[in-house]
């Protein structure tokens, strides 16, 4: 039977429609959209956010300098991404957990990881991945997006044990192209897990720009395919990040949320990378004007809550803490035996033989 073309209009039902909101509260001039200002946030807390963001930038500079002096291995700088990391970390409740990739140094900082442990990681020792339980975090993960399934499982265990705990999982813009990213979101959606997936979209996956990572208008909308809530936020606005993540945490007992934080990698992918080879410096200048720390300083200065004197004192205090931690990390003496003793929960004879051989022949003296 031949049907007239208009007949289709009666049969087609729209079965899905989605939209992604973008949230900004604190603009580049340090002005606030009061209608969106989150409850539970006050100037005292914003000051704290400012201190943490500044601390993270100082820490970053230190790690970079240590690497250039040969005192640290390859390091992944965070400069430019402080608002995404500090805003999300400060939104966490005491018992909440987080799963990072390899760049969330500021999250560890806010959650109280002793800095000498962080430095041990960047000096190339496994002891630097032994994150104390009270930090509520898991170690850095290097294979891109492979941490997302872990986060789903960790969230599963919280729900299984009937704990009101949210699990924050960080992934980059490049990471959203990995199968593990989608598998984890899909799994979290099906089991309604208390997971908050945070895309730290810094626009660059080493040399590949965001535009070549996905044809999707937003990375947040990838949540629709998994049937989970999704939202985009100005990732350089610590107040907006705080608000959106806080809401996702509050909703976590009902299921996961995907949040795209739009930020910018001001520096290199890692110390082994040279962005001048592939990135237009003019683009970096555009993002400098959107700096996440500058806008908080402007806000605080307008309210007369900040001054040059306070800035100077804070910088000195933070550097002192950093230097002490570096000294502790540099005093660390590795014990090669520990490599053998932590492979299994038991010691297989074949491994014991390899250990004994190394000790008996003084292989480690060379």
């Amino acid at each position, binding site marked *: 039977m031949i049907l007239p073309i208009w007949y289709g209009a009666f049969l087609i039902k729209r079965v899905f429609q989605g939209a992604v909101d973008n949230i900004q509260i604190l603009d580049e001039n340090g002005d606030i959209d009061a209608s969106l200002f989150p409850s539970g946030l006050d100037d005292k807390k914003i000051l704290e956010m400012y201190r943490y963001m500044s601390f993270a930038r100082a820490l970053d500079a230190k790690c970079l300098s240590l690497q250039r002096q040969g005192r640290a291995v390859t390091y992944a700088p965070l400069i430019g991404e402080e608002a995404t990391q500090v805003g999300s970390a400060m939104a966490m409740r005491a018992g909440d957990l987080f799963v990072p990739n390899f760049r969330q140094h500021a999250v560890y900082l806010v959650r109280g990881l002793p800095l000498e442990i962080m430095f041990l990681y960047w000096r190339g020792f*496994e002891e630097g991945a032994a994150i104390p339980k009270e930090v509520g975090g898991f170690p850095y993960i290097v294979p891109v997006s*492979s941490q997302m399934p872990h986060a789903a499982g960790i969230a599963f265990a*919280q729900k*299984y044990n009937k704990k009101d705990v949210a699990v924050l999982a960080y992934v980059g813009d490049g990471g959203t192209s990995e199968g593990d990213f989608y598998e984890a979101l899909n799994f979290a959606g099906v089991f309604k897990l208390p997971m908050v997936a945070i895309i730290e979209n810094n626009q660059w996956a080493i040399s590949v720009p965001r535009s070549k990572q996905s044809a999707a208008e937003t990375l947040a909308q990838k949540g629709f395919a998994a049937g989970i809530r999704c939202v985009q936020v100005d990732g350089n606005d610590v107040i907006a990040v705080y608000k959106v993540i806080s809401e996702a945490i509050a909703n976590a007992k009902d299921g996961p949320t995907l949040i795209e934080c739009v930020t910018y990698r001001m520096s290199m992918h890692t110390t082994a990378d040279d962005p001048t080879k592939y990135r237009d410096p003019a683009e970096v200048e555009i993002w400098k004007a959107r700096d996440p720390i500058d806008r908080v300083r402007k806000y605080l200065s307008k309210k007369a809550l900040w001054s040059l004197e306070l800035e100077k004192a804070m910088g000195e205090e933070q550097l002192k803490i950093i230097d002490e931690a570096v000294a502790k990390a540099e005093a660390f003496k590795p014990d090669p035996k520990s*490599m053998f003793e932590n*492979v*299994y929960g038991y010691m297989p004879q074949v491994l014991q033989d390899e250990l004994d051989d190394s000790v008996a022949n003084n292989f480690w003296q060379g």
Partner: protein
Amino acid sequence: MKVNMVSAINNALDLAMAEKEEVVLLGEDIGKDGGVFRATDGLQAKYGEGRVMDTPLAESVILGASIGMAMSGLHPVPEIQFAGFMLMGFGQLANHAARYRSRTRSKFEVPMVVRTPISGGVRTLEHHSDSPEALYSHLGGLTVVIPATPYDAKGLMIKALHMRDPVIFLEPTKLYRLFKQEIPDEMYEVEIGKANLVKEGNDLTIVTYGTMLSVVNEVVEKKNLSADVLDLRTINPLDEKSILDSVKKTGKVLIVHEAPLGFGPGAEIAARIAEKAIFELDAPIMRVGSNSFPYPFPGYENYYIPNALKVSKAVDKLLST
């Protein structure tokens, strides 16, 4: 009770779930369906959908989420429907399960038992018959187990669920229903990392495991051999001592496995014997395995898997040198 291997595994899981609330099962079709081989049959009805979960069809997150669960106090038992599909989650096992303990100096542990059917001989479609034990053993950090009997399957599974390590539990499909055996009703453990001396003799040592144990036994009986037959049960870590003790006694050794010969478990075993007992040998070390290429379609599998004739010829050659 007198049971086949698949029932023995089901019984072990049942007892472990009754013992510890932390034990949870997850995988494709393991709930109402009880798994495509029925290894988890009835467990969802008994323990509920909260502890026996049908997951989305996605191997990497089945294994990756299990790692997360294991680090958060649970003791998950993920089932991967066939070993061929476990490669989709290989990154999770190699990058994370194998090294989370060492990379955190034991601050984080990954206690879990990954179950998957292996080996061929049951005329399945391609990708359903692989023997990948060498892949997982080579990584280090993973304990790799292959039972050859219902008794061992139950005892090894219970032991694995009492450990704090990731255990790759490889179940030969051909043995699931091949024979029944009388086993205790209650919980018992079979030691992991310890080979089983199945037969004792003086003329040669045959080191084997999994599907090849019954082939080896058949040859030993038919030829009336005086042989030590060692069933490894654990591939990694290797029970080197039991192998060397036997080899030193008999002076001749044949290694038999279904996995392909090239870079296979037999190469590792032979190298260790050569390093540590070569002067106690009076014949070259011999190996029998599948041919060194990927598993064929089922129409060709009988030309590929080692059979009694191939083992028998190898024994003849070994005894004549």
